[in-house]
């Protein structure tokens, strides 16, 4: 064969392959899934998807990762507008109301999972059992009496302490209240080889919400938005002012270090692992990583409850994290595939493995039982803290968590106000009152658009 005809033959083969490839791939039912992780958590999810694709060869689940909750939320809204939304998308807890309201031309973006499952007790042989979910997640995601989205990665804000450093400073036990944190910091900073600062945490609205709920206060009106659509925020409540004042006081004494950027998960994490601070308030989602990184850096990490205000009765914490939302208007076969994947993804073994791998709480009671029977908690006491903290919460509207429209924007008003306090030394009450006014305006605009109220 001449060179030219060989080239032609090769080209023909390539073109045939290109033409055939989509046809071959389309034999399987495509189930695109978007999640807001780009790290090892994405790899873990992709491994589960690969297993699922082998177990159910009629489906092909593909998982795409996004940098953070905020960007996946924006991307999914835009995709829906253009008709290219995935079958399943992971939205953070604060986007719950926005997700329920989202839609174009009267067509909702998401379908309630309870509605999608109907009264089926199994899909493709996988059992459906909503009662197995842990109470904190069930309470948060049960809206108008049923599950709107499928709980997955659920965490709580807890404290991590550099036990080695605390012991060196002569601190007994782990601080459980704000006053005990102050006292511990005083001892730590008085050490000869004291760290640069004593404590840090990200300026993320979630930590603020936790602290407000722990003092038994609602964040928004109408039963924290759970009895009726919330129309007013309580960002400048006494509980909020007390918390931010304590925070500012810690900073004034040189105990708290602000990393300079809002929602700075990375900077605060690194400060703790590098030994620049002795304590860190963080998401339990990174319990495993923090414990291991601390050990690698040569110190013991002990997890404990988020410190509470000693002057107020402890009301308990609320969840954080995200849930999986099912897109509306999927064909029956895609929807069934998506539901099957949701069940597989959160089955007992996977829920337990996800917890061990990250530090998110085991999302089902059966997973907790499995972990207990394997002796996991005896070996890894830090991993139990978040579940214990959530279980310790006294059920109330405050600890169920706020459901409110434009929540991410409201959080932004809160973190802006806190930043003005921390960076520009603004008065706490004044900054929070301004944030409340701005948040109420944002909420009024949101309600006007979505509910015509």
């Amino acid at each position: 064969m001449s060179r030219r005809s060989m080239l032609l033959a090769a080209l023909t083969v390539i073109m045939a392959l290109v033409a055939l490839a989509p046809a071959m791939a389309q034999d399987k039912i495509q189930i695109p899934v978007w999640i807001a992780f780009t790290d090892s958590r994405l790899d873990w999810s992709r491994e589960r998807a690969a297993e699922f694709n082998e177990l159910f060869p009629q489906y092909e689940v593909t998982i795409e990762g996004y940098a953070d909750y905020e960007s996946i939320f924006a991307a999914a809204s835009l995709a829906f507008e253009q008709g290219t939304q995935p079958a399943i998308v992971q939205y953070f807890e604060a986007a719950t109301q926005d997700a329920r309201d989202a839609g174009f031309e009267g067509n909702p973006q998401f379908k309630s999972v309870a509605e999608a499952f109907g009264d089926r007790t199994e899909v493709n042989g996988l059992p459906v059992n909503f009662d197995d979910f842990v109470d904190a997640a069930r309470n948060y995601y049960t809206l108008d009496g049923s599950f709107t989205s499928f709980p997955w990665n659920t965490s709580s804000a807890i404290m991590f302490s550099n036990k080695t450093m605390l012991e060196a400073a002569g601190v007994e036990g782990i601080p459980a209240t704000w006053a005990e944190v102050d006292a511990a910091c005083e001892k730590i900073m008085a050490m000869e080889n004291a760290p640069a600062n004593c404590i840090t945490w990200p300026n993320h609205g979630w930590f603020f919400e936790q602290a407000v709920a722990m003092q038994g206060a609602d964040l928004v009106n109408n039963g924290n938005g759970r009895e009726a659509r919330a129309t007013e925020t309580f960002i400048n409540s006494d509980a909020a002012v007390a918390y931010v004042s304590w925070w500012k006081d810690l900073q004034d004494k040189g105990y708290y270090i602000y990393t300079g950027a809002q929602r700075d998960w990375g900077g605060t994490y690194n400060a703790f692992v590098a030994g620049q601070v002795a304590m860190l308030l963080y998401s339990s989602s990174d319990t495993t990583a923090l414990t291991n990184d601390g050990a690698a850096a040569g110190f013991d990490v002990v997890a404990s409850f988020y410190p509470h205000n000693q002057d107020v009765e402890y009301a308990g914490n609320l969840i954080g994290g995200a849930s999986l939302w099912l897109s509306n208007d999927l064909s029956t076969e895609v929807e069934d595939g998506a539901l099957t994947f949701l069940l597989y993804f959160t089955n007992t073994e996977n829920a337990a493995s996800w917890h061990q791998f990250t530090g998110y709480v085991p999302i089902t009671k059966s997973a907790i039982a499995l972990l207990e029977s394997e002796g996991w908690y005896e070996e890894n006491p830090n991993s139990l803290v978040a579940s214990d903290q959530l279980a310790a919460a006294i059920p109330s509207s405050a600890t169920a968590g706020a459901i409110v429209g434009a929540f991410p924007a409201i959080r932004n008003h809160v973190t802006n106000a806190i930043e003005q306090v921390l960076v520009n030394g603004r008065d706490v009450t004044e900054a929070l009152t301004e944030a409340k006014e701005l948040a109420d305006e944002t909420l009024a605009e949101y309600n006007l658009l979505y509910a015509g109220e």
Partner: protein
Amino acid sequence: MLPPELIVLISIAAPALVGAAWLYRGSRTLSAGFIGVIAGGIGGALFMVPLNYCTFEADRTSTDVAFGVFLIALGAVIGIAVGAGVNRIVGSGKGISSLTSEQNTAGTFKGTVIPFALLAPTLVILALFLYAPALDNLRLSTLLARLGTDRTAFVCVDNFTKLLEPRQNYGQTLYATFLISFFTVIIGLAISLMIAYVAYQPVRGASIYRTLLIWPYAISPPVAGIIFGMVFNEGAGIMNHLIRSGGGVPVQWLQSASIAPWTIIAASVWKSMGFNILFYIAGLQNVPKDLIEAAAIDGANFVVRFRRVIIPMLSPITFFLIITNITYAFFETYGTIDFLTRGGPAGATSTMIYRIVDNGLNQRDLGSAAAQSLILFSLVIIITLIQFRTSGRRVTYGR
């Protein structure tokens, strides 16, 4: 408040009179005056008719009214400027061709069909992907609109006037934008010229140096943000490590509201330097050697040669670089800022483009983001016009 009919009348009649006077003054013909009346009248109504004169409704604040008057004036200026152009075409009696220069007619197309047919692919793409979304943005800026719903509400010019409220801190945003942009351009160009001059010298391995110098340009702004985040990290960064080992006090590169903008400037300058150096080296190669030699023979020392010969000879390059660098500083620093400071601390590095993306996508307030992007758009147009009017005239193209 005046009755609405009177407002409409004034908003059209006043610009029409101004337009007539302006154009008549220039050419002293009745037709010019007539064009002025039409252009001014249309200009006066340009923004107000789509807005349905909402800024003058009874329950509007004085800020809204003032903004309405501003919009009428702006529309009038645009209308009269277009009218002046039309007048030139009509007045010359040669149609569109009067806009092209007289001496350079060789090789031009006859008629209008073929040139427009050849331009069509570009025009269609521009219209579809640039002009149509830009017009839609105008509409969006008058709406209460949020990402995630198609329901909107007309809010007149609230998205603009809200920015004037002190608690919105828009003044700080403008200040941060100008501070960061101005110094990014000035410092960036100065350092780039210096480095380019050194790299341009015939030394061994010059091409290797030049390649290495251009490298930062190939790095995306977020990566530049990550690199500088590691360098300027307060606790673990290299910068503070050096300062500490030198016995100094660590600097709060990213935590201090007064220092953080300068960290952003440093990162932006570093990022844009490769591009600038590339152009300056190319420019330096085009500076005629005989000019420099002649200056040297005349007794000009290095500084004088640099100031009087090289910099003027580089002025077309500098002019081009100022425009591209302003665009860079205004629009493309988002990634760097997002990774270094997220607009903080307390808004000190929240530039206009950062705020637009943050308000529009993160806070989902599309209406406000649209309004802000129009302000940014107008600013860049104004700066570019000033630039063309001032430095543009001083540019020497060497012939």
